[in-house]
């Protein structure tokens, strides 16, 4: 699944990022394989998405989120 499928409050582990579609800036802010990601809040129509990635809080658009693969963690 991709980051765009995450529900509000859910967590996941990033498994892969498509480096062609993802700005380097996002990687530098901690969006790297192995890091924990949580969907904190979504704007109407689930776009943009407010995330907590590895302790960094940031918002990205859905068009970016679909290029980030994740695995959900069982809570």
């Amino acid at each position, binding site marked *: 699944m991709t980051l765009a499928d995450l529900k509000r409050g859910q967590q996941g582990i990033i498994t892969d990022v498509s480096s062609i579609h993802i700005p380097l800036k996002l990687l530098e802010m901690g969006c790297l394989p192995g890091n924990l990601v949580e969907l904190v809040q979504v704007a109407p129509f689930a776009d943009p998405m407010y995330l907590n990635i590895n302790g960094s*809080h940031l918002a990205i658009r859905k068009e970016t989120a679909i290029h980030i693969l994740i695995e959900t963690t069982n809570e």
Partner: protein
Amino acid sequence: MSKQINVALIGNPNTGKTSVFNALTGLNQKVGNYPGITVEKKEGICKLPRGVKAHIIDLPGTYSLNASSLDENVVIELLLNKNDKDYPDVAVVVSDVENLKRNLLLFTQIKDLQIPTILVINMSDRMAYKGISLDIEYLEKELNTKIALISTRKNKGIQELKELITHYKELSSEPCLNASTIDKSYFDNLRKAFPNQLLYKLWLVITQDVNFGKTDRKTIEAVEDFKTKSNADLKRLQQKETIKRYQFINETLKKGQTIDLNSAKDLRIKLDRILTHKVWGYLIFGVILLLIFQAIYDWSSVPMDFIDSSFASLSEWTKNTLPEGAFTNLLAEGIISGLGGIVIFIPQIAFLFLFISILEESGYMSRVVFLMDRIMRRFGLSGKSVVPLISGTACAIPAIMATRNIESWKERLITILVTPFTTCSARLPVYLIIIALVIPEGRFLGFISYQALTLMLLYLIGFGAAVGSAWILNKIMNFKSKSFFVVEMPNYKLPLFKNVALTVIEKTKAFVFGAGKIILAISIILWFLASYGPGDNFNKAESIVTEKFASENLSEDELHQKIESHKLEHSFIGIAGHAIEPAIRPLGYDWKIGIAIVSSFAAREVFVGTLATIYSVGSDEEETIKNRMAGEVNPILGGPLFNFASGISLLLFYAFAMQCMSTLAIVKKETNSWKWPMYQLVIMSAFAYIVALVAYQILI
């Protein structure tokens, strides 16, 4: 003269870098632009112990040395160019104790450039609150640096930082990790080809495609036996490099930092639950906008009225005190009124930036961007364009200055270009008097007055024109820079008074000394054109008018008004009004309205005052002017000049035309070129003309 130490402040956005800058320099700072571009350059002087002085430059906030915007480019260009006069003797990397991991990424990159570096860990007052403790000694050893633990909020640690800067020569300039292991053979080749260059510098030049000195990407790749890499490969390597850096940082922080989650408190979650809520979030933002609007529209009218009357009496006093003559007139009516026309904007600018800097400082602005992004994106605007567009309803000048915090140049430019369409408060007097003249007093469905409805429609038309033209501009403007949307959602903080105050002062100064010069020049020119004219008709106005009305037994006041009216008609501006009459007749206007349109270029509200002079009413009372206007007869068609058709046409003309020299001046300043304000002037005015023409021809 002792040599100054060049200090560069570098750091992620939202780390309180500007607070550190303010704490070090206080009021000894100046803000300018980097040559040729619109990125702000902040520099200041800091007095260090033992009489040493430091020249401090506050570089734009950046997350890494891999630049993705013009602002970030400034950072890397300075750090790569040893010959730049601002090249730092010491780099001070400012980090936020709560985001140390991410902040250290930039730190490790700066270290790789082998510049002596100090690490500032700011917001140390939050450590207990967040359950964070640090092993400073260990971190200093691992990171190969000196650390200043400071709190700009509590004013702690600044002295220690100054000491560290003074002794910058003792700092290590060795890197803290070896990033070249990500592709050993590639970097070995690079080293062989350029033995005298810093490896990381070369790497930055290759990946950024910038040039410093005589080295750029092409000269590196032109070297024989040197294998070039595709862009995709380079990007993969950059990703590897980032992972490598994070590995090092994670290991260092594992030992150097402990976070006790049990004692950590989080205000963010609670606040965000409300402030970014699908319903409450928008409601709260609406209330905040209303408050801003109220402040610039209503509260600032008190100081504005005061400024207005003060300059009027100063002008009056000058005229009465100094000997009569051309110079006194220039001083009293040209220069002093022109200065008044600049100072009058200060309350609105100060209020708007008071609010904006509070919103920025508190971290709330990022939530606005989050809430509004999807709606604004459709029109090629940013979530941050909302505040400028709404403040444009008070005045376009502070609104255009407020676009500075939109990172993407394309989004910022579009916002600047379309903001003047929103209905600013200077249009209001024009709207009110024309609506009162041509719109019937009845009520729609029995309770909404037609006049109020018209006014509301005019506001909607203005906003619609802004958004619609943004949509078109977004489609036709081609910008190479691809913008990604990544917005940091910083922690909520109480704004620091010092930062807010300095922002307000700095923005006001930027307006007065930047756009102010242009405004003063144009208003003196306009004054000259309205006060002088060629030939006898102007110069002998008094005798002509006195003779003409000799039989009518006018009072002295009435005669004086007739003379003023006659003078204005035959002044240069009056001649211009006559000259454009053929062009504006199809819109339903006569030459008198023509004069009012030309002179209202100084400020739209001048329209009413100019008509009062032409009609020689001699009173600014709206009722009097209105009655006089109602009696005007169309010289060609007969019937009232201000009828429904010409009234609507005039309203639409004022809704769309770019009739404000102050706005043009500020656009020139903000875009650093006359090209954009000229586009605005020509396109908006042409559009206004066509719409007014069509409306009049249909309605007549």
